C-alpha cells in the first residue's frame, strides 16, 4: 500500500499522460470517424469506396501492427514527431474506423424519407447531413461511441512499448523496483484505469440524457 502512496506523484503523472493520449486520440478519432461516416453515405461512389476501404483496413488490422507501422514507418518518410503524437496517430486511425461504423449505424436509424425531403427542398448533401441527419444520428450513436472510447482509453496502454511513459509503463517500472508489492501496484494502476473508464461512461450517460427526446 505504502508503495502506491510513496509514488503517487509518479503514478499521477503517468496517468496524466494516459489521459492526454486518450483525450487527444478520442478527439481525432471522433472527428475523423464522423467525416468517414459522411463519406460512406455520400452519393459519390469513389468517395464511398475510399471510406469503406479505410474502415476495412483499419478496423481489421491489430492495433499493435498499426503502432509498429506508425512508430517505425513515419521516420523513414522523414516525418519526425514525438512518440506521443505517433501513438495518437496510431490510436486515432484505429479508433476512427469503429467510430465511423457507429455513426453510420446511427445514420441508418434516420428515416430515409427525411433525407429525401431535405434534398427535395433544395438542401445540398452536406446541409442535409449537418442539419437533418447527423443531429438525429448522433443520438443513436452515442452509446456505441461511449464503448469505443472506453476501449480506446484502455488501448493507450500499448503506447508503453513505444516510447510513452504512461500508466502501464509506471506499473512495469514500479513492479521492477518493488516486486513484493506487485499485487498492490497492479490493483492501484488497474483501479486508475477503471476510474478513467467509469468517468467516460458517466460523461456519455449524461450526453445520452441531454440528447434524449420524448417520443
Amino acid at each position, binding site marked *: 500500500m505504502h508503495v502506491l502512496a510513496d509514488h503517487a506523484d509518479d503514478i499521477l503523472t503517468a496517468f496524466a499522460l494516459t489521459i492526454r493520449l486518450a483525450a487527444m486520440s478520442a478527439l481525432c478519432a471522433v472527428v475523423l470517424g464522423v467525416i468517414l461516416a459522411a463519406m460512406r453515405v455520400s452519393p459519390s461512389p469513389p468517395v464511398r469506396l475510399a471510406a469503406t476501404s479505410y474502415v476495412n483496413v483499419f478496423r481489421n488490422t491489430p492495433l499493435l501492427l498499426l503502432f509498429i507501422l506508425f512508430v517505425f514507418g513515419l521516420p523513414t518518410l522523414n516525418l519526425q514527431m514525438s*512518440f506521443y503524437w505517433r501513438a495518437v496517430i496510431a490510436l486515432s486511425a484505429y479508433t476512427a474506423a469503429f467510430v465511423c461504423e457507429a455513426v453510420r449505424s446511427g445514420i441508418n436509424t434516420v428515416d430515409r424519407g427525411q433525407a429525401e425531403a431535405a434534398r427535395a427542398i433544395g438542401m445540398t448533401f452536406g446541409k442535409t447531413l449537418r442539419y437533418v441527419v447527423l443531429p438525429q444520428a448522433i443520438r443513436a450513436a452515442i452509446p456505441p461511441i461511449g464503448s469505443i472510447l472506453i476501449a480506446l482509453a484502455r488501448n493507450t496502454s500499448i503506447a*508503453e512499448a513505444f*516510447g510513452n*511513459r504512461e500508466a502501464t509503463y509506471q506499473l512495469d517500472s514500479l*513492479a*521492477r523496483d518493488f*516486486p513484493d508489492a506487485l499485487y498492490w501496484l497492479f490493483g492501484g494502476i488497474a483501479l486508475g484505469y477503471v476510474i478513467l473508464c467509469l468517468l467516460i461512461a458517466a460523461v456519455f450517460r449524461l450526453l445520452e440524457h441531454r440528447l434524449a427526446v420524448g417520443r
Partner: protein
Amino acid sequence: MFLRRAVFPRRAAVLVAAAALTATAACSSGDDTSTGSGDTPKVDTSASFKAGTTMAKLKSKGTIVIGTKKDQPGVAFQNAASGKFEGFDIEMAKIVASKLGLDPNDPKQVQFKEVVSKNRETFVRTGTIDIMIGSYSITDKRKKLVDFAGPYYVTGQQLLVKKDDDSIKGPEDLKGKKVCSVTGSTSIDTVETKYGANPVPFDTYTECVDQLKNGSVDAVTTDGAILLGFASKSPDELKVVGDAFSTENYGMGLKKGDADFRSFLNDTIEGAEKDGTWKTAFDSTLGKAGVKAPKPPKVDRY
C-alpha cells in the same frame, strides 16, 4: 508477442531416457572439453545426478527450456536467416546444457526462448523457463525473487550514440536528452534518476537502435557488451561513448531456493572458467569485435 508456448516433446524424452540407460557410464568426466576448436562443448553423457534434483529431472525429461534475449548481437542474438541463437550467453547456456547431458545442438533437447527484460522474474518463478541466461544482471532487488548462479561475466552501463554526434560524451551530458532503453531494465532507471535524462521505453534493444538511427532518440543505454555488438554491426553509423558508469554482473537466474541446481550451475561456471571453455566461448562471440577475453569473474556463492 511475449508469450510463446512451451513444447515438451514426449517422444524425445523417452528416447533420451532409453539412450541414458543403454549408455553405461564408461566415459570419464575429464574429457568433455573441446580443445581450442571453438565448437560447442561435448555432451557429458556420463552426467548423473541425485534423484529428485532439478538436474536429474531435466536430464530424465531430456529437455531444458532456456530463457534468453534475441536482439543483442555478440551476447544473445537470434540469427534472422537461420533462426539459431548465438552469442556469449548462448555459449554459456550450451555449456550448462552439455553438463546436464543434453545436446545443445538439438533444438528438441535445448530450447531457447526469447524473454524480454520485464518478464524474466515472472517466467523463472512460474517455471515457464527452467533457467534465464540473457544479459541478466544480479541485483539485490531481483535476488528477492529469483536465485542467481554466477556471475559469469562483468560489464557496465554505457551509451550508444550516432557517429556524428559530439554533444554526448558521457552520462553527465544526458540531462533532458531522449535516451532509449527497455522497459523494466535497470539502465533506464539509472539515466532518469541519476542523470536527469528523458527516458524512452521500448520492448527490445533493436527497437531502441532503430529509433536512434532514425533520429527519434539521442542515445541508447544499456550494458557495454550489448552496445558494442550493435556498434560493430553498423560501425559507420553508431559509436559507444564514455566509460562504464555502473557494474553489471551477469548471472543465471533460477527458481528461488533451488540450492542444488544453483551449486551445480556455479560449479559449471567455475569449471568452464578453469578449463578454457569460458575463454573459447568469449573469443568466438564478443571477442570477435576485437576485444581480448578479460579475466573471468569470481563466482559469488552468496
